[in-house]
């Protein structure tokens, strides 16, 4: 219970916790925190024509799956195999209300939260850069997938994903 509070608070600040536990040798908790709260490293991606930002700290791997890496469950291709892991997909099209989103042509961004991995399909990766985190404001309090937003170099606004929330939404 107490550990969960710590985890949530750290996740809110954009950090994360790793646990290493070896029998008989004790347990170590590694807290990773962003140096500056307002500026984070972000990976800008495109999903169905709109740009979004993923905090780079949460990204484990980026890859384009081959045909044989798809895993079907009950006839639906909603898992992906990467090395020894079977990774569930985040249904980002449902979360964002996007129609006709073809996942087979997507690049997959494998996100890490706690000890879990989940794959986020995106149309393409644009770039990796430092971003200034801004609030979306009270009108968007119900938009839980968004952590905030940032203004890009070209003046456009991109929404920053709340990775923790994307993980919860899939469960």
């Amino acid at each position, binding site marked *: 219970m107490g550990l969960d509070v710590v985890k949530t608070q750290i996740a809110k600040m954009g950090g994360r916790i790793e646990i290493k536990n070896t029998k008989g040798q004790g347990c170590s908790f590694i807290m990773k925190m962003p140096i500056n709260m307002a500026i984070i490293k972000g990976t800008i991606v495109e999903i169905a024509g709109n740009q979004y930002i993923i905090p780079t700290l949460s990204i484990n791997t980026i890859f384009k799956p081959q045909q044989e890496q798809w895993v079907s469950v009950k006839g639906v291709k909603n898992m992906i195999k990467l090395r020894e892991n079977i990774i569930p997909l985040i249904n980002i099209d449902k979360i*964002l209300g996007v129609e006709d989103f073809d996942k087979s042509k997507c690049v997959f961004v494998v996100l890490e939260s706690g000890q879990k991995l989940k794959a986020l399909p995106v149309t393409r990766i644009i770039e990796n850069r430092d971003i200034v985190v801004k609030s*979306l404001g009270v*009108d*968007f309090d119900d938009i839980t997938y968004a952590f905030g*937003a940032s203004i890009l170099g070209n003046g456009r606004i991109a929404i920053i994903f709340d990775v923790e929330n994307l993980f919860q939404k899939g469960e």
Partner: protein
Amino acid sequence: MEKKGSKFLVFELCDEYYAVSAKSTREIIRIMEITEVPKAPPFIKGVINLRGKIIPVIDLRIKFALREKPYDEKTCIIIIEINEQEKIRPMGVIVDTVSEVVSIMDEEIAPPPEFNNQSQMDFLYGIGKIRDRIIWLLNLDKIVSCDELIVINELKEDV
């Protein structure tokens, strides 16, 4: 003796005239690129970057259930200040076009017609008349929260 009046910024929506208090208006800008926020209510068109500030933008045509129209060179965003629980924050309101600033005397403002559900009336401040034109005076402080859709439709049947 000087008469008591207030200034209003008049704008058009579907060939009807609406107005907001000039006091709560910060600026008027042309329509610009709007970043969509998926899963937000339909009338919230998204957010704009106003000189480095992220500001929500609402489309009054959608909010009032009027026929939607593609934006053109006349379309404007009025940046208003919303006073919500003693906190002032900016918000963009998309309108067909901004026409003028008028002074309306207090005695020229008719109170809004009464409805069964008074809480839905919060957004309508009164009805003004300028040169035989009816102008709906809006109080946009509660525009996001209240469900004025029904009210606007009832009003049209009334007038």
